[in-house]
Structures are given as structure tokens and as C-alpha cells.
């Protein structure tokens, strides 16, 4: 019998949803275990970093890394994962784009610590005691914690990534497709995103009109959307035009708009810029346009609350402007 493959699952700054989705492949797990040994996966076995560190370089065939990189431990594991693996897959939107944790790039470590260790209503911490990366007791024993970074990064900001499997989390069907490719041994060229190159709108079955126009922006709970018609046309912000297909339009099926978790297609430079353009361009243009003042236009577009959080929900660390800088408050970053 051919030698079994060696697989590893490594956790970065993750919510663990990706772990759950891997386990959700159910009976396929048995098949996977038939052809592969899982040599490291904190979620299902008792493992230590030191065991991973002790493995020979390049000895793991495939590693799935899920979660973003936002502290020194994530960075360390990312580098070890790279060294020990022949193929490294960025698994899930956090690893691929920075994901939801990436929204922390609108603030910084200092502010985050202030909220977490001081401002939350359930916290009493008058001396503002915060976790220290290193602490020594009187007898010289040293305890350490990972260093928390100002920024949240994607995996490939630190190490070379062989394949990308976006999605928050990647769906079972996507994981199965990726496994098929791995099992077949016919791996695509490195650097490939294991998802479609089309946009979600291309695959979405909802009716769209030729000349799309949004009259008014609504939040999903404010209207009962027609299940046959394009959500964007009904005024619900749907990121389908700027998002990669591959999720079988799961959210749309549930009458919820796409929030963009699969990220942009290769054709887009910036997911947020791309959806901003698509939505602004169809926002209530009528034949009374020349009578509209710049003030009216401002009112029209300010119906979109929090464009940054909405358009870059999963991709801020990969956006062109990657993090906010506080020019307006004249603060140094």
C-alpha cells in the first residue's frame, strides 16, 4: 500500500468555525483517515507546539492553516507550518484575507486593550492591569504570553501560501472539492484560489433587470424581500457583484444578502472599492438628476451606514488602504 499522506490543521487567530466545518465533512472524514494520518490538529487531539516544532522540515504533506495572524504566537505557528509542510493551504477567509478579525485594523492595540480590560461594563480594573508578554517572579521564573500586534494580517503576509480556500467558513462542498483535488494528486499551479473566478451574481439565480436601479437602501430586517428578485435591486446591500462565486449562494438562498465572505475575484483590485462602485452607480438615478444638488447626493449615499465595515467585512487587511490612520484627530499611529 502506498504510504499514507500526512495532514495537519493549524490554528491562528480563529473563531474555530473553520475547525467545525472540517469536522462537518462527516463520513468523508473516514475516507480521509483511510488515506491520510492527521499528525497535528489541536481541535481533535492532544498536541503541543513542541511536537510540531520537532517534526522534520517538509514532513507534512498538507497543512490547513485557519485564522488570521495577529500575535506573535500566530506568526510563530504560521512560520513553523510553512517549514514543516510541503503544501500550505490558507483555509477560511481569516487566513486568506484577515477576515472578521481584520476589522480590528480600524483601531489599534491600545484602544482594543482599553475596551477589553477597562471600558466594558462588567470590568472593574482601576489600575488598568493588562496582560504582559513577560512576567518574572521573585525567584526568577519567567512566564510569557504571545505579543499582541497593532494590525491583523493574512497568512500570506508572513509566509508563502500554496493554495487559498476562502469562505467564512469554507463550505463542506468547497472542502470536499479541495480534498478531491488533493486526493487526485493533480494539484493546480501554486498560488491558486480554490474557488470560482466568476462573481456570485453570475451564479445567483435571482431575476435582475437590465437597467438596475436602487431607490432606497434598506436593512434586511426592514423589508420582506421578494425571494425571486435580486436583493440589491430591492435595496438590500448585497456584495454579490464584487464577491467570488463558489458558495452556491447559500446566504441568498436563505433570503439574506451576501456579505462578501469569499472575497473578491482576481479581476478586482479591492473588494470594497469594487462594490462601492457597483452600488453607488445604481443609486437612484432618475431623469431629475440635474436638479439634484451635491447635498442631495450626500444624503443619498449616506443611507449606507458604515461603508468600511460593510464593504470590507472580510477583507480589510487585504484592502488597498489596509488600516486606518488617524489624520483627523492628529494622532500618530
Amino acid at each position, binding site marked *: 500500500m502506498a504510504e499514507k499522506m500526512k495532514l495537519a490543521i493549524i490554528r491562528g487567530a480563529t473563531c474555530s468555525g473553520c475547525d467545525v466545518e472540517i469536522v462537518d465533512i462527516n463520513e468523508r472524514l473516514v475516507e480521509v483517515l483511510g488515506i491520510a494520518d492527521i499528525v497535528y490538529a489541536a481541535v481533535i487531539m492532544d498536541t503541543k507546539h513542541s511536537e510540531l516544532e520537532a517534526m522534520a522540515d517538509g514532513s507534512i504533506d498538507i497543512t490547513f492553516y485557519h485564522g488570521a495572524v495577529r500575535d506573535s504566537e500566530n506568526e510563530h505557528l504560521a512560520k513553523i507550518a510553512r517549514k514543516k509542510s510541503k503544501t500550505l493551504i490558507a483555509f477560511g477567509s481569516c487566513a486568506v484575507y484577515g477576515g472578521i478579525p481584520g476589522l480590528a485594523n480600524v483601531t489599534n492595540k491600545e484602544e482594543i486593550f482599553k475596551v477589553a480590560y477597562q471600558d466594558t461594563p462588567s470590568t472593574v480594573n482601576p489600575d488598568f492591569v493588562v496582560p504582559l508578554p513577560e512576567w518574572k517572579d521573585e525567584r526568577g521564573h519567567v512566564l510569557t504570553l504571545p*505579543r*499582541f*500586534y497593532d494590525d491583523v494580517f493574512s497568512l500570506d503576509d508572513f509566509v508563502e501560501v500554496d493554495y487559498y480556500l476562502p469562505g467564512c467558513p469554507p463550505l463542506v462542498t468547497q472542502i470536499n472539492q479541495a480534498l478531491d483535488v488533493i486526493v487526485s494528486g493533480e494539484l493546480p499551479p501554486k498560488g491558486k484560489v480554490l474557488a470560482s473566478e466568476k462573481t456570485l451574481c453570475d451564479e445567483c439565480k435571482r431575476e435582475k433587470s437590465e437597467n438596475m436601479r436602487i431607490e432606497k437602501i434598506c436593512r434586511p430586517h426592514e423589508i420582506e424581500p421578494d425571494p425571486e428578485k435580486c436583493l440589491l435591486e430591492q435595496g438590500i446591500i448585497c456584495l454579490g457583484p464584487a464577491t467570488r462565486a463558489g458558495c452556491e449562494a447559500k446566504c441568498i438562498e436563505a433570503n439574506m444578502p451576501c456579505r462578501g465572505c469569499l472575497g473578491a475575484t482576481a479581476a478586482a483590485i479591492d473588494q*470594497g472599492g*469594487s462594490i462601492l462602485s457597483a452600488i*453607488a452607480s445604481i443609486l437612484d438615478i432618475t431623469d431629475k438628476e440635474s436638479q439634484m444638488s451635491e447635498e442631495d*447626493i450626500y444624503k443619498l449615499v449616506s443611507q449606507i451606514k458604515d461603508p468600511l465595515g460593510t464593504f470590507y467585512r472580510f477583507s480589510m487587511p487585504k484592502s488597498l*488602504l489596509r488600516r486606518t490612520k488617524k489624520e483627523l484627530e492628529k494622532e500618530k499611529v
Partner: protein
Amino acid sequence: MDWEPKILVFCCNWCSYAGADLAGIARLQMPTNFRMIKVMCSGRVDPEFILSAFSKGADGVLVSGCHLADCHYIGGNYRTRRRIALLKILIEQYGLNPKRLRLEWISAAEGQKFAQVIREFTEEIKALGPSPFKKKSALAVVEASPTVAKVSTAVAEASPGT
């Protein structure tokens, strides 16, 4: 401070570029801080281009098109004004002063106006100072080579421990 702003100007082919040309032919005095990109229509200026310009360190971006109802492609500038208005809100969220992005309607006959806008805008940007995205930060290293592992030292400098 030994700093001169860098301003990027997008002009549509049919009105604003001709307006700029007129300003040049008439030898109107203008500061030389701007570089111009001619596009077919102001509607061709994708928000991604503007974000790219800021990410590469532009201190200000001016988009200029035909007056409303005069766009050669009928509705290009209607889209432009919505995009720019929304983009202003977005860049403000990123921490950029929205004044760094400006939209103007300049016709082929308005050489004077073009020169005036350039003078005004340059003064305004000078008063604002360099863009906060200008500084060579750790992130710039990442941007230049997204798949290379050179970042970590930069990150260590940028994010010292508590």
C-alpha cells in the same frame, strides 16, 4: 518642512481635459504639484483607482468631468458624483480628511476655472500636510511583496509588546 504635495488629477477627455489644455495654452499660472491622467469619462474613474492613488502616497486626488447633463456618455458623471460622495465617507473612515478628494465639473471653455481649482486645491492640500498613508510603514513592505516573509521584522518594530 521640505515637502511638496503630490496631487493626482483625472480629467475626462471631452470637457475637462480640453479645459486644462486651454489653461495651458493661455499660459495661466498654476502650481506644478499635479500629474494628470486623461480618461474617456469621469465615470471611468473607478473608486479602486482613487484608493490605489492614496495607498501609493498621493496627498490629494481631483476628479474632473463635464458639467451635469453635458457628459459625452450622457450619465457617466451622475455615477461619478455618487461614487465620489460615498468614497469621501469611506476615506474618512480610514482616517483621511475627505477634503483630499475633490470633484469638479469643468468644461472645455473653462480654462480659468481649471487653473483656479488647481491653485485652490494645492493650497488646501498644503495646509493639510502630507497624507498619513505617505509614510513608509511596515505595511508598505507587505504591499510590495505580499508573499514574502520579510514582514516579520517590520511588524516587530511596528508592534512592540506591551
